[in-house]
């Protein structure tokens, strides 16, 4: 399993297309920094194939006022959970 980190908003950057195209069926994705905008319900569509495999970083959601606005398509984890994901993953690839 590869963990993919995405730190760009899916609304303004097209790097999300490259990241999604590079993901295998067991790979996971964590949204961090500006990427947590992908946690808004209105942004769920591009991630529709990632059910159960899409995470968003709690600290970055909180500071942006997005924590209470998150959709059901993402699982919220904190930075310790982030480390735990990297423990489980064979490798981590960052998209920016």
């Amino acid at each position, binding site marked *: 399993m590869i963990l993919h980190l995405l730190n760009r908003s899916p609304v303004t950057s097209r790097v999300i297309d490259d990241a999604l195209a590079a993901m295998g069926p067991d790979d996971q994705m964590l949204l961090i920094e500006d990427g947590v905008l992908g946690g808004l319900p209105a942004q769920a569509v591009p991630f529709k194939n990632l059910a159960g495999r899409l995470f968003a970083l709690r600290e970055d959601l909180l500071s942006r*006022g997005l924590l209470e606005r998150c959709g059901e398509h993402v699982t919220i984890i904190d930075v310790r959970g982030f480390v735990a994901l990297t423990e489980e993953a064979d490798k981590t690839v960052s998209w920016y």
Partner: protein
Amino acid sequence: MSGQEIREPEASESDSVVDNSTTTGDLLVILRHAPHGSSWLREGLDTALVAAAFGQQVTLLFAGEGVLALLTGQTAGPLGQKGTHGVIDMLAMYDIDTLMVDGRALKSRGLCTDDLMLPVTLVEGDGVVSLLHGHRLVLNF
């Protein structure tokens, strides 16, 4: 230019309107970046505050990710980064009260004016074109 560290979420009383007239002024600052992710938003806001302090008539246009600057419920970052919501709170003190928001940017993120900290004027269609032409100087952050 420091501000409060934590701001509780609150439903803002929205009295925003759609702008069909032409807003003019000395300086238009376009804010297209989100809080916390980079220093662009902070630097754009600082430029606006300084211009206002120098007596220039300043208009802010929140576009793209910049609309997130106005979202209620923002806090400091996990290492204590101040964020920009404190600066937003200070705009009125600097007589910056022309806050324009790109309606398309808000809508494409599934947000509405009730999500915002302050009353704003929505810009639709060619409104952005008029804003750019109606100001002597435009700075894009």
